């Protein structure tokens, strides 16, 4: 739960015992071969793991690097979020919880959480900002079809940040029966650690799938769970680790240390500490914070964090679609956009071998993309 100066457990006293119990339960489960094998089995026969590592042959030739795509877009529900929810779902059941509470931005985590709940026979309540509900109608319909209750959040910026506040409030009120199924590597301990461990399957698989260690490993970062999981597989290698943020939600480049949603990390905020509203075309990156481990990796220089703008992201989705036949999520396209912008520069020299995690597929973004056509 502590990553250098970052992390911690800044929660109301009402949640302290629950966080402690969760940490203990996860530690025990993670060390339990039966739990691990049940999770591994679900990841394989239900979620479709391992996901492929696809060589992007045409795009590589065009930009002069060797680009390999870790295909989380092929995982069940369409993103890496399924890895985390299956783990936490099994854990919730093991802890005797009756229901789960989740927050969601783009809706990918909400869909994944609703999916895990349906699979495991748990009730699901998903908090989602009113603004995100408007721009991610498809995912709202998916969640309700899966039997989840989607609660619109009308406070603040009406996006992920506020949905997270509301989910934590809901957890306080039902801490015995409910598991708070947090979707990213933020929040109080044990979440940043637990979610990273549940997502490290991305990086561990990719590490096994490459023939030799890549020069660069790149992933998009909002809260940063797909990046954290990817980086975990390459942390002990010579690969450079690159996180790509939305220019309008770049907690690493434009933020300052702060405490939001239970952890100390980098946060977009004003001089007094009021949290700023992020602004990104990708609802999943429209978040002013970042997971504390990323803040730490950035502080110690193990990972670099860059940002790209909305128009670069839209162009990246289209270019990847037309060269590789893969429509990735706007979130994932941030990593692609960085590669397209930097290929051939000192940041990403010609000939570099790059593993890039495509965190999710872009079906959910077609309306957004259509509107900027």
């Amino acid at each position, binding site marked *: 739960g502590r990553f250098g100066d970052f992390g911690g457990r800044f929660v*109301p006293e009402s949640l*302290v015992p629950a966080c402690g119990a969760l940490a203990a339960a996860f530690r025990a489960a993670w060390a339990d071969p039966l739990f691990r094998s049940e999770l591994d089995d679900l990841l394989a026969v239900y979620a479709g793991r391992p996901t492929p590592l696809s060589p992007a042959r045409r795009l590589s030739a065009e930009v002069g690097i060797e680009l390999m795509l870790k295909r989380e877009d092929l995982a069940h529900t369409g993103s890496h979020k399924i890895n985390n929810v299956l783990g936490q779902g099994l854990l919730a059941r093991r802890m005797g919880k009756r229901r789960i509470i989740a927050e969601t931005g783009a809706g990918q985590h909400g869909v994944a959480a609703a999916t895990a709940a349906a699979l495991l026979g748990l009730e699901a309540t998903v908090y989602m900002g009113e603004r995100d509900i408007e721009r991610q109608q498809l995912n709202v319909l998916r969640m309700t079809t899966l039997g989840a209750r989607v609660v619109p959040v009308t406070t603040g910026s009406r996006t992920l940040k*506020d949905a997270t*506040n509301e989910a934590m409030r809901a957890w306080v*009120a039902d*801490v015995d029966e409910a598991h708070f199924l947090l979707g990213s590597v933020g929040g109080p301990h044990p979440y940043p650690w637990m979610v990273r461990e549940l997502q490290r399957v991305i990086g561990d698989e990719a590490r096994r799938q490459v023939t030799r260690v890549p020069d660069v490993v790149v992933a998009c970062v909002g809260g940063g769970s797909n990046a954290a999981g990817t980086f975990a597989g390459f942390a002990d290698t010579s690969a450079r680790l690159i996180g790509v943020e939305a220019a309008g939600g770049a907690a690493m480049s434009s933020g300052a240390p702060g405490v939001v*949603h*239970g952890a100390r990390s980098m946060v977009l905020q004003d001089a*007094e500490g009021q949290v700023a509203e992020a602004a990104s075309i990708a609802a999943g990156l429209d978040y002013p914070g970042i997971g504390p481990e990323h803040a730490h990796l950035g502080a110690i220089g193990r990972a670099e964090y860059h940002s790209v703008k909305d128009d670069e992201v839209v162009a990246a989705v289209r270019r990847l679609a037309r060269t590789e036949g893969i429509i990735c999520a706007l979130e994932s396209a941030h990593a692609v956009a960085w590669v397209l912008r930097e290929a051939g520069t000192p940041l990403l020299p010609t000939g570099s071998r790059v593993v890039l995690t495509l965190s999710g597929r872009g079906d959910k973004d077609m309306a957004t993309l259509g509107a900027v056509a």
Partner: protein
Amino acid sequence: MTENWLEYLFALQDAGADAIEIGLPFSDPMLDGATVQQSSDRALARGVTVAGILRELHDVRHRVRVPLIAFTYSNLVFRPGPAVFCRQLAEAGLRGLIVPDLPLDEAGEVEAAAAAAGIELTLLVAPVTTDDRLAEIAARSRGYLYAISHMGTTGERDSLASSAATVVARIKRVARVPVLVGFGISGVEQVAAAGRVGDGVVVGSALMRRVLDGATPQQLGAEVAALRSALDASDEEASADRTAYAEVSGDRR
């Protein structure tokens, strides 16, 4: 409503509040219910700042006769740094500080800074707090102990949670400072009930909603006076002194 929040403060003081909580508005009030959220959103949208609130309090500090306690979230403390923040509170004439998302385990730095600045850092106890933690919280809390009456956010409820009596009783066994009961208390009956178990009652959202609904300082003062009476009545039935503790919307007007 914008300009006259200090009038509410003095109306509360005149109506018999024993201490007044000054909410410093935060963009992400994780533990607050809808009333405080709306109020915070509006205040921030209007350009209210912590610096402005503290400056205004500083200007009237000679008229304040009851303890003022700041209530806000960790980020507002850590952003300037706990030492700077606590000094600013002290300079504005505040006596105490409550940070609902700063549990014991994370409180060390703020505790030290508060002590150095002469600010009492009041810690919170929840119905789910274990005995071990309760003992440590009781040992380290300054000014008061804040009993969270029920598992949930702030905001009015139909009745006082049954958990309130239990948690307050547990706290009082180890408390060295007065125990305030808060979270979701409204109306004379709940105040009286809370007053019977604790040493004081925090009435926050219920009063704030009255302000949001357009109550004048005079009307709010009358409400608090009624609560004060109810509390005093409950006092007669019970054994200890009672404190009426009202929250004012420096932040949340």
